[in-house]
């Protein structure tokens, strides 16, 4: 298992391999299973991811509290926005879709977490659809995403209760940006820059869900997280280099998480959760959940 992205990138460069190949080999070694089995597990994850996207895009789901649902379908069908019909708009709709399914206690793939589960499948499947990329390359991309996530878990955190939303949708944006950059032909070094570019844009992001429900702002933060990933991919593939290495950006995220007040770490004590409207909605909705007994 790699503890830094730099060492994984160096290994890929030395051996003239892709990061996904490096990731699959490392995972096979760690688990003592052949690469084919690891790929099969990722293939199953891809099926669940697509299932959640399809389910969410229908638009008939409501969350446990009734607070969110139906917005993925709005974006999916809209012709109003400047990006309507584009891959950008499609990725946003997919991110909302997965997170709406999650909020309804549906089945999703934690990527890396449930609260941030929309970003990675949205970015990867959305861009794969736009560019006619086959499933084998999507599976490669999931392996790369896994490697990036494991480095973030090792160096910082993947928990909103530990590090705020920067450790959930922020980490997911880094994973998605790096993985998609490779999928679209980027070099291992460009993958590193994509991770850094995505995660620098989410530093300091707090975890402030209303009533502690993984609904609001989580559903929308997955869409904006995906947008940040897309921005990072666009820049990295254009050859933009971020001067601070990805590992140091990740370390910074971990440090900010440690310094973050407990109110901003998934306790519903601060941020949007503590606004007058946030408090009122949380009160009403928690009562609704208890009454409906779901």
């Amino acid at each position, binding site marked *: 298992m790699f503890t830094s992205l730099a060492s994984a990138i160096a290994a890929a460069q030395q051996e003239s391999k892709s990061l996904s190949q490096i990731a699959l080999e490392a995972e096979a070694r760690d688990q003592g299973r052949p690469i084919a089995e690891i790929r099969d597990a990722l293939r199953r994850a891809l099926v669940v991811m697509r299932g959640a996207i399809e389910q969410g895009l229908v638009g008939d789901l409501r969350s446990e509290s009734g607070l969110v649902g139906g917005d993925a379908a709005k974006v999916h069908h809209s012709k109003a926005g400047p990006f309507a019909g584009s891959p950008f708009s499609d990725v946003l709709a997919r991110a909302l879709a997965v997170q709406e399914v999650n909020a309804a206690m549906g089945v999703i793939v934690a990527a890396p977490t449930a609260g941030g589960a929309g970003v990675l499948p949205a970015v990867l499947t959305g861009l794969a659809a736009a560019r006619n990329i086959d499933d084998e390359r999507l599976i490669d991309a999931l392996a790369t995403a896994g490697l990036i996530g494991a480095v973030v878990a090792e160096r910082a955190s993947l928990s909103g209760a*530990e590090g705020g939303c920067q450790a959930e949708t922020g980490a997911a944006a880094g994973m998605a940006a790096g993985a998609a950059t490779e999928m679209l032909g980027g070099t291992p070094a460009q993958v590193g820059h994509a991770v850094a570019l995505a995660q620098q844009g989410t530093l300091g992001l707090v975890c402030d869900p209303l009533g*502690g429900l993984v609904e609001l702002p989580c559903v929308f933060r997955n869409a904006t997280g995906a947008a940040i990933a897309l921005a990072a991919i666009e820049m990295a593939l254009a050859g933009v280099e971020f001067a601070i290495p990805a590992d140091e950006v990740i370390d910074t995220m971990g440090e900010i998480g440690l310094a973050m007040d407990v109110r901003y770490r998934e306790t519903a004590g601060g941020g949007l959760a503590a606004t007058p409207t946030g408090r009122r909605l949380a009160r009403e909705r928690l009562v609704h959940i208890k009454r409906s007994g779901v």
Partner: protein
Amino acid sequence: MVGPSSSHTAGACRLGLLARNLVGGTPERAHVELHGSFARTSEGHGTDKAIAGGLMGFRPDDERIRTALDIAEREGLAYTFEKTTLGEDNDVHPNTVRITVERADRTHVMRGSSLGAGRVVVSEIDGFPVEVHGNHHTIVLVAEDVKGSVARIAGILADDSINIATLRLTRKHRGGDAFMVIEVDDPPGEEVRDHIRALPWVRWTHRLDKVSS
């Protein structure tokens, strides 16, 4: 996994599954003490449903978690949840739970935390400090500090064709109680635990099945 939170739902379910191991099946009674973010946001995340589901043997991707509290009532699992403080915020992980499980004449207490992305750690069983992550089938035991104890345990596992992945042995002082946490590749049967339990210098042992890959 079933949403909405990998730490508060999937991780919580895994902690329930681990606690279930201590009494060898669905407990008749469970008292669940929630700390920190677990206490503050448990209903919203379905943490209560997920822990109850885990105690009944549901895995994190089992859709029955959604209605686990209703199922618990039908299955005869009497549960109580308490929001509490298990220590200072800086010392205790924000997603920590202490679960007391009772089944027939067995009562055990487990403390564990959900670390994010579904990863968990069990930090205490019946007051003994342990570190079990649930990525492997695990045997935990407390033994008197006698010579050859590791060889004897390794022998019992080898006789059953069980391969040891990792073994950690700690003791507070020479001659004091030794804690062993043994992660193994293959699920050890009840008889392996019984063999270990029958050793005169073993004070206490438990088997915790793998809850994640």
